[in-house]
């Protein structure tokens, strides 16, 4: 909570280097990028829980995996939405009609890659919820989750870096590189990542508690 309050206040007030194409929008680093960081963390927790389920066959871990993945998708969607806003005012040429710059923006490998990754995770939710038998559901979706996580890396980390792109972060980890991020911005950025991640983990644990409660009442 404190971390997030600090993020919003400091993120809006502290001095940032003004780059020509970005200007003040570079502050979006504290919001847009953190959404993706939170998503990655949640998907990682989700796959760890899937593996734990497959080792122990304790259904509780399957619920953990499902809820963490669901909140991860939420963060991914928010990252996508904020990215759409940000991009509209930095990449798109203001003098051109939108459909003229659409062809270059739609070719962005990062956009396509994240779209694929999110669709794979949607398929995970659909697969898991479409099987009625509880053990079968947990086992199949657990295995699928591992594959989904494996697909996440080529689609959002590897392929976008091979292809030419407008999106920053081509030659390394965007914003994690000590050389290309201003030291003032680091002061806000790291707490911001931790704060948003903790917030999303909190939402996920709320969902887990609800669903564990639901399972318990269903068994009785």
């Amino acid at each position, binding site marked *: 909570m404190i971390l997030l309050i600090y993020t919003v206040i400091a993120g809006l007030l502290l001095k940032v280097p003004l780059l020509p194409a970005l200007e003040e929008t570079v502050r979006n680093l504290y919001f*847009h990028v953190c959404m993706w960081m939170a998503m990655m963390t949640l998907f990682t927790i989700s796959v760890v829980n899937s593996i734990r389920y497959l080792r122990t066959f304790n259904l509780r871990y399957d619920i953990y995996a499902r809820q963490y993945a669901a909140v991860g*998708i939420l963060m991914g969607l928010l990252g996508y939405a904020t990215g759409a806003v940000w991009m509209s*005012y930095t990449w798109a040429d203001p003098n051109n009609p939108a459909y003229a710059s659409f062809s270059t923006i739609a070719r962005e490998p990062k956009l396509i890659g994240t779209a694929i990754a999110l669709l794979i995770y949607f398929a995970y939710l659909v697969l898991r919820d479409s099987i009625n038998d509880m053990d079968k559901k947990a086992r199949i979706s657990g295995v699928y989750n591992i594959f989904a996580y494996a697909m996440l890396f080529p689609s959002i980390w590897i392929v976008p870096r091979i292809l030419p792109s407008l999106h920053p972060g081509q030659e390394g980890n965007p914003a994690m590189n000590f050389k290309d991020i201003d030291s003032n911005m680091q002061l806000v950025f790291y707490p911001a990542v931790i704060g948003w991640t903790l917030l999303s983990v909190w939402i996920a644990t709320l969902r887990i508690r609800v669903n564990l409660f*639901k399972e318990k009442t269903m068994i009785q």
Partner: protein
Amino acid sequence: MRNISRLFALFLMLLSTTLLHAQGDSSLQNTMRSNGRIYVVITVILVILAGLFLYLIRLDRKMSKLEKNN
């Protein structure tokens, strides 16, 4: 299942925003580009807040339904 399909529809809508952007009237465009485009940051924060709140309200509704059933 219904929730997932709703989320999925939202996702498709987000994909199509790339097509629709920058077609608003020019006064909106001018505001968004003034003051070093700080309003873009504001919009981004509002999008995140709106998304999180909608999600939490849905969760809240689900929980009250559960409580009612017991």
